[in-house]
């Protein structure tokens, strides 16, 4: 059974690109355009891994991460942050909140696939 990956990203072209490449790699992909929608999807969709953007309207990626880690159902889902903001502070904050990886945008999509596969034990 294909692993399910949730993409929480407000920039549709990026979402689409990642979805595209992950699908070619055989993953099942669900998406959310903002934080609240992402949290809902995380609870109902039960993804195996979440790709999370930080700079989003309404709710920032860090808040989403905080809430994910606070809830029992979603706390164990590994989260990889993908952001244009990649200062040391940002990275440290993300890791502290429980992200397993912090990727700076723009990234090599095949490197992302590689990391996703590593963390899913594939």
């Amino acid at each position, binding site marked *: 059974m294909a692993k399910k990956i949730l993409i929480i990203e407000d920039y549709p072209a990026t979402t689409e690109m990642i979805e595209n490449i992950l699908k*070619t790699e055989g993953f099942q992909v669900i998406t959310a355009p903002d934080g609240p929608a992402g949290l809902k999807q995380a609870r109902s969709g039960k993804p195996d891994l979440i790709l999370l953007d930080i700079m989003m309207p309404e709710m920032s990626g860090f808040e989403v991460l905080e809430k994910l880690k606070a809830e029992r159902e979603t706390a164990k889902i590994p989260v990889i942050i993908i952001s244009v903001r990649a200062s040391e502070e940002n990275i440290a904050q993300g890791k502290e909140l429980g992200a397993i990886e912090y990727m700076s945008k723009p990234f090599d*999509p*095949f490197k992302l696939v590689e990391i996703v596969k590593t963390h899913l034990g594939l």
Partner: protein
Amino acid sequence: MQTEIGRLLLYIRIKWVVIISIFLLVATETIIGIVQPIATMSSFVALVIASLTNLVLFYIIKRKQPYTLTSYLFLLFDLALVILALYFNGGLENTWLFLPVLLIFFSGYIFTMRVSLSLAALAYAGILAISLLEYFEVIPHLTIYNIQNFLRNNLEYNIDNLVGLFLLYFASAFSSGYINQIMRNTFKDLENSMLNYKASQEESEASRKALMNIMEDLGKTKDELEIRVSQRTSELEEAKTNLEKKVFDRTVDLEESRKAILHMMKDLKEDMFKLQTIDRLKTEFLSMVSHELRTPMTPIKGYVSLFLSGKMGSLLPAQIEAIKVISRQSEHLLDLIESILDVSRLELGKPIPTKMEPLSLEKVVREVLEANIINFENRGLSYQLDISNNLPTILGDEIKIKRILTNLIGNSIKFTPKGGALQIRVSLDDSNAQVEVSDNGIGLAKEHMEKIFEKFFQVDSSYTRATGGIGMGLAIAKELAELHGGRIWAKSDGLGKGSSFFFTIPIGKKGGE
């Protein structure tokens, strides 16, 4: 002499009195008829002669300065006249034998004692001679009281008379002479006193006049001074008024200037505040823009990778080449975006994030050169790499060091004409690894050697468009080199003579943090 003239005039006056007195006496005797006619006659003759001599003497005195000798002669003449008159009037018989005393006295009074004594002697001699001649009957005795043999009959009386006359004459001579001397001395003293008084009076007069002159001068000077003072005072008054007016004007000017300055300061403060706000906004905008620009770069890069991977279907070789161009240009765009981000960090004073790790400088240099191969080819340039053998691993941020190298090599490519050559040399000294990028391009002017490392500095702004830079490359390279604890500098022999850029990274040290 003046006094002698005065005394002679007195003598003349007294003589007139005597003449008139004798005339009256003789006239009375004649009327009574007690004297002899010859006596009366001789008396009148003598009186007439005496009057004439008196007039002559008076005339001489009035007309000119009389000689002393003239005065003597007149006295002698008068004496002779009196003696003769006495002879004709009874000789020793006559009671007026004292008459010569007047002459003797005046001669002493007018002249000196010597003269009066001489005159006394002559008078006595005359009387004595007449008496003796009459006694021995050489000459007749002319009696006035009709007395016969007067001398012989009254011998004792006559001798007594002669002795008395002697005493009388000489006593008057002595006394007059003596009085004269006293008077002269007194007069001299008086005269001296007078002279002294006059002299002192003249002196004091002169002093008074001098004093008056001085007073007058002083008065004039005082007037002049007063005029000057009044002139000066009015001038000063005027100057003071002018000055006050000026001060007032200046004060008004100053007040206006002060207000203007205050206004300007307020404006400046506002401007400064605006500028600070604008500057902050600019920096924030740069940061925001760079992040926003990265967002669309993510799908672009992602799709380019997908295309090139062949996972979106096979492409024609020409299509692959086109995608590769997109790939490279998007990398360049990212590089520019990254520069802007670094600039905004520099502006904000935020630390540029670094990820220090051990790395091989040789590998980094080779990778940067490989990434630029296409640029060398496009510009028709060659390069030579010269790397020291015993290069150790250094501690650094790969991306940052690559950016330094990219900037330096990129600059050399930009500013070296077609057919030129670059030389990249990596060497080592005691504590630093040094990278040198040299070219034989357009070179650098001396005055630009330092400035080129300043933010947004461009030697010629036309290069900006032609070469696609923003004038930040070297400023960022400097910042990044210093972030590693190294330094950066340039050398050039001048315009058209190529240039060399150097940067150092300390060995085995984690600089900058």
